[in-house]
Structures are given as structure tokens and as C-alpha cells.
């Protein structure tokens, strides 16, 4: 069953307060709730939290759900800020609404799309999900920008990220097309790589637009 938005907010605040800030519990005031809050009641019913006096404790049973809630929130932040370019207060506000939609595997898909990020835009850790563990176990690094490759590594060009049509054409005219194999031979003073039987030099700015699947 799915938790209400209010319950998710409480779980999230509890996780941050206890796991990340080291408190053992949070007072009602710290969670922004009153004693007869619906969300709190919902969580108590599931035995995710325990209320003692005016303090709320996160129970062992609720830990996993809390962690996943935090994960969804921070993934939402990454998605909004990195991909949709919504920054600042507006981004934060939208992320709070957005996170409640990331259920039923949507979070996994977004996590994979973002290449399993480990921190949110504010620098706080994103708890790893099952997909992250699997990717780590397989040693798959997914798709990275050319600037992330080391000299001597090769990969298959996955996509070009530039929105600038001229840049796109330059790259394509060099044979930098998805599906082609690329072998990086230098990263300094410029990026030097081989596609097919030709060698090219590009600066950081263009290299950042080329995304490759390592391997």
C-alpha cells in the first residue's frame, strides 16, 4: 500500500533527523505536526514510528520505507535541477511535489537515467536503491561524458548531448556518431581520440558533449 504524502514527509524528516543528524527522536514541533496528525496516525498503525509523549521515534520496521522516501526526494531534486533545469526555491518546491510520484519503479528508471547518482544537488547522500547495488555488482558504469574517461580507455559513443546544432554537426562530421567505437588516447592538453582510422583533437567543451558507454 502507498503512504500518503503527509506520511512520507514525516518519514523523510525523521530519517534526516535521526540517521543523518544523529538525534534519537524528533519532537512534534520539529516535524511540524500535532498529536492527532493523520500522517502520524497512519505511520503508527503500520508500526513504522512510535510516539512517546511529544517525541516521535523511527522504528526498525519503518527504516527501509523512510530511506526510500529520502531517496525519492533527492532523485526528484536531481532530475528537476540537472535535467529540467529548475533551480533555487522553485526547484525545491517542485521537488517536494514531484517525489510523491516516483513509485512503482519510476524511481528506478529515473535513477538509471541519471546514472545512479550518489548525492543530491545540495551535496547530501542519496541512499542507494536496488538498481544502484546491481549496477555496482555488474561493474557497469553506464554512460559517462568523454571527460570522465582516462587516457587509453575505449567506449561506444552513446549520444551527443549538445543542443547547439553547429556543434552537433561538427561532431557528426568527425564521425562522432552513436554506435561508433571511440578510443581516447590523451586527455591533456586537449582530448585526442580515434574514431575509425582517424584521429581528432577536441577541447573540454566539446568533449563534455560526447557521451560514451565504457567498455
Amino acid at each position, binding site marked *: 500500500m502507498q503512504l500518503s504524502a503527509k506520511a512520507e514527509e514525516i518519514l523523510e524528516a525523521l530519517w534526516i533527523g535521526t540517521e543523518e543528524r544523529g538525534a534519537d527522536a524528533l519532537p512534534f514541533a520539529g516535524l511540524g505536526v500535532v498529536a492527532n496528525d493523520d500522517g502520524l496516525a497512519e505511520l503508527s498503525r503500520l508500526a513504522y514510528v512510535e510516539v512517546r509523549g511529544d517525541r516521535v521515534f523511527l522504528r526498525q520496521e519503518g527504516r527501509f520505507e523512510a530511506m526510500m522516501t529520502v531517496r525519492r526526494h533527492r532523485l526528484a531534486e536531481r532530475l528537476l535541477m540537472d535535467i529540467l533545469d529548475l533551480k533555487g526555491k522553485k526547484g525545491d518546491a517542485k521537488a517536494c511535489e514531484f517525489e510523491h510520484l516516483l513509485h512503482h519503479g519510476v524511481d528506478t528508471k529515473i535513477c538509471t537515467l541519471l546514472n545512479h547518482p550518489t548525492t543530491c544537488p545540495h551535496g547530501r547522500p542519496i541512499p542507494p536503491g536496488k538498481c544502484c547495488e546491481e549496477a555496482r555488482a555488474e561493474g557497469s558504469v553506464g554512460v559517462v561524458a568523454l571527460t570522465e574517461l582516462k587516457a587509453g580507455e575505449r567506449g561506444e559513443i552513446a549520444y*551527443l548531448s549538445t543542443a547547439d*546544432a*553547429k*556543434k*552537433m*554537426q*561538427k*561532431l*557528426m*562530421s*568527425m*564521425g562522432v*556518431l*552513436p*554506435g561508433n567505437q571511440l578510443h581516447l*588516447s*590523451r586527455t*591533456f*592538453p*586537449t582530448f*585526442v581520440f580515434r*574514431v*575509425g*582510422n*582517424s*584521429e*581528432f*583533437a*577536441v*577541447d573540454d*567543451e*566539446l568533449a563534455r558533449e560526447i557521451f560514451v558507454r565504457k567498455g
Partner: protein
Amino acid sequence: MSKPVSLSAGVPKIVLVGNPNVGKSVLFNALTGAYTTVSNYPGTSVEVAHGFCDLAGLRYEVLDTPGMYSLLPITEEERVARQILLHGEVHVVVHVIDARNLERMLPMTLQLAEAGLPLLVVVNIMDEAERCGMTIDLPLLQSRLGVPVVGAATARKRGLAEIRAALAAFDPSRRPVFAYASDLEHDILRVAAQLEGNYRLDRRALALLLLQRDEEIQGLVAATEGAHHAKLQQTVNQVIFERRVDLHLRISLERKRICQGLLAEVVTQRTGGRPSFAERLSSWSMNPWTGVPLLLLVLYFGLYKFVGEFGAGTVVGFLEGTLFLEHLNPWFIAVADRFITWSWLHELLVGEYGILTLAVRYAVALVLPIVGTFFIAFSILEDSGYFPRLAMLVDRLFKAIGLNGRAVIPMVLGFGCDTMATMVTRTLETVRERVIATILLALAIPCSAQLGVILALLSATPGALLVWTSFLLLIFLVIGLLAARLMPGERPMFYMEIPPLRLPQPGNVLVKTLTRMQWYFFEIFPLFIVASILLWAGKLTGGLNILVGWVQPVMLSLGLPVEAAAAFIFGFFRRDFGAAGLYDLQTSGLLSPVQLTVAAVTLTLFVPCVAQFMMMKKERGWMVSLLIFVFVTAIAFASGWGLNRLLLATGWLA
């Protein structure tokens, strides 16, 4: 729309097209021999070479187009190349491609075939491909492509006879068609079916270019279709919107898929083998730790030893000292003394600034050997493929001064001739880069003629050369940094193909050197004569003295003797002239080491020669070139003043 370039109507035309660096120009020279002319494409600054060739008793006009990567142009060069295809009556289009990268080159072959152009494919650089361990089944490729395919290594004169034979026997009626995926074809047809006008290019190709928002084609179609155009544009916009996610990419991938089909079993690659010496040298040249020492070696042997000592020393010594001063000039003067009684004509021909005694002597004895040896060294480096490596090595540094690594080529060429280098700045992509490069060339890059004299001048005074070099480098960097900060415009972007290093071919080096020398003489030599006449007129009318009088106070403020004024005035007419004037001052003992250094620095920075100014005007327009002129003059004298103060205050060189 500008008119197509043509020397003569009615002669069937052969147009060479292809990527840069695939040996188009070598093939062009081989086909046309010596009878070529280079002219600007109407309305642009892009040059197109023409020539004629006779095949099986028929005369053909041959055009060498600027390098293009695709039928959809990005640079002005590509635009011109396509204009020629778009508007000219073409008998055959020769697509020259690089055998090592067929997979990358063939998409453009497809585009040319798709455009309905009569096509002949030359698979060039076969020798290098074979050295890489590739075998290419050309007959199979020919049968798959449906147009004649000839293998060649034009740089080694291989396959030229076959190319001639294929051109002579060319049958323009063969038009192969390659199909894209059906959904894409459907959309192309939706647009192509609405094109009703008469076009030189095939409708399918036009439709594809319209879908890729090619502005020039949009203009052409709008003009041809008339009232019908609005409806057509609607369909185009519709398809573009429906395919907004990935149209460009989809077309590229489709072309790639077709090319892979064409190439299956055509290319076999033998793998393995140790890296060759050329490959190892190549990687050393790109590693800063080994690349910089390598660059210094190149500069030492190429510039200092060959151009400086051999060209400016040995050859100049012989030509100027022995040939002109001992033999030719006395003879000119003796002949003039005997036959020319008018003193003004006598003065004009053999006087102090005489055309024969000064202009010709300077051009032949002083400038020719220095510029000639420089062009030889430059052409050797160019043919070996060293410059792209240098470009990637200095890219970061050049970014700081608002340029990108690509600009290293005009900058190095500037050490030979700033005028030619100013012309070459047109290969830079943005206007901003072109302006910055033009300023730096005008200001801080001394040309070889000037370098020769200044090196001779300063080498006698220990430390002066060091001060001169460091000061010029400082000015170069400071002005570059400022320009990068202050000049508006796009940030430069660097991308460059790095061709394999190869041993320079004597034939290529010779042709490249001769072409440059020829240009130099046709463009610059008349100016030498003009400068001589102006100086002669100035001397005769007294105008020169008035001008010198104006400049004298400036000289005094720089701490220089008033006699230096003449050198600066001459310097405007020709940079090396001014330097030579200083040389005379120094040999007559009029300059102290400080004065010498200040004068040399100021003169090097000072206004470019007349020829360079004319080239600046041609490339950048009156406004920009006059601004640069004023700016450079101000910086030159301000720097001279500052340097004089500095040297006097610190007591260096005293």
C-alpha cells in the same frame, strides 16, 4: 544568389569535392598542371582554384572546391563548395575520399548521389590504408555504389592515369538511388512531391535539406516556388515538428546503416603489429613533456638554423653583397649615367630609393631568400602533418588569448609574412577570432624579412635580443588576454582532425612553396615598386622631410635620435625597410644599446607594412582595419616610451 565561377562557358566542368585533408588539391594540380588560377568566389572571401585539363582530345575546366564535410554546410568554405554544385553546369563531380575512413566518408558520397549529381568516386590515400593493414575490394564497392570507383594515392602519383581514363570515359547518365527506412522515405516524399519548380539538385535531396532547415535552400525554394511556397513550408514545418526529437540523428544513422551495407566485405582489416615509429613520434609530439622540447627543436633547426642562418645569412650575403652591390648595382648605375640625362628619372631608377637599386634589390636579394627559406620550412612542416599537433598542444594557451589552437597556423605563418597570415585568418571560424588574430599579427608578430634584419641588428648587443623577445612576448600575451576579456562574441571552440605524421614529399613541398612564393611576388612586389616611387616622390618634393619632421618629437620622447624618424616613416611603407634603416643608424654608431632595443621593439610593434594594411582592409573592412591601425600605433609608441623609461631606470643594457 551569386553567379557560378567559370572561366569559359561551354567547356564541360569537372568539380573536385571532399573533406579537407584527402588530397583534393594534389589531384587538382596533377590534372591541371601549371595552368591554374585562384580567384575569390563572387561575394565571398573564399578562394576557388580553376584550371584546364585535356582528356582524350577534349578540353575540360577543373574546379577545386574548399573542403566540405557534408552537403549541409557549416562554414563559409562549405557554403561556397555547395554553391558551385548547386548552380554550376557540372559534367562530373569527383568525390575524393580517404581510403582509411570509408565508413565516415561514404555518407557524403550518398548525399552527392542522392542530389542527382553525376558522380565519380576516387578512393585516395590507398598507400596509407595498405600500410594500416587494410585491403579494399574496389570492384565490389563500385558495383554496390553503381558509380565508377578508382583507387589512388595521388601524393605518390598512383592511380592518376586511371582517374584520367575514368574521367574521359565518364557516363553521366548513371544515377544510383539509395533508400532510407520507409517511414523516413514517406516524410521525404511528402515534401518532395510538393516541389514543382526546376532545380539542379534532385527533389529528394532538396526535401531532406529543407527538413534540416538549410536556410540557403529555403531561400532558393521560396524564390522558385512562388505562391505555392507557403503550403510547402507548412508541410516542412509539420514533418520537422513530428520528428523534432531526433531528425538530424536519424538521418545520420540511416546513412550510416546504408554505408555499412555498402561496405560489408569491401574492407578487410589485418590487425596487430607494433606501433610504427611515426605513431610513436606522433604521440611524443602531442605529449606536452616531449612535445615542447620537440617544438623547440623544430624552431631551432627550422627557423633559426635554416631560415636565420642559411636564408638570411648565407643566401642574402651572396645575393645582396656579391650579386647586387658588387655587380648589378654598379652596372645599373653605369648604364643610367651613360644613357639617362634627366636627373628625376635617374633618381627614380637608380637613386637612393631607386626602383632598380633599391626595390628590386630588396625584393630579390633580401626578401626572396628569407621568405623563400621560410616558406620551404613551413611547407615541410605542413606536409608532414605537424601543425594540427602543434595546434592541440597550444590550444589551452591560445584560449586564454581569445583564440583556439587552430589559430596557431596563421600565427606561425605570420613569422614568414604577416600579410599572407592576415589572409589566412579567414580559416578561423568566428569573426571575433579573426579580429583578435589580425590585431596580434599586426602588433606582435614580426615577419621574416623584419626578423632577419632585427636579429642581425640585436645580436651584436648582448641582452638586447633577450629584452626584445621577452617584451614582445609580454605584449602578445597582455594584448591577447585583454582582447579575450573585452571582445564580444562567441567563445572559441577547438576541434581538429589529426592526420598521421608522414615523411614530407619533395614534390608537394616544392609545389606548396612555389605557390606561396608566386603569391608573394604578385601581391607584394608591386607594392615594393609603389613604395619606392612614393619615397622617391617624397624626397623630390620635400614631403618626406615634412613627415620626418613631424615624427621627430615622437622619437625624442622615446629617447631616440631624430635620425630614427626616417626609419619609422620607411617602416610604414615596408616593415623590413624600417629595420634596415635602423641597421644603417647602428652601423654609423648613432644608437646606444638602450636606444637600439627601444627602437627595435617600437618598430616591430609599429604599424604593419602597407601590404598588410591593404590585406586587413580587404579582410576586415575599412572601419575595423583603421581602428586596428590606430590601436597598434598607440600601443607601439606607448610601449617604446615605457620600455625606454624602464631600461633607463633599471640601468639594464646601459
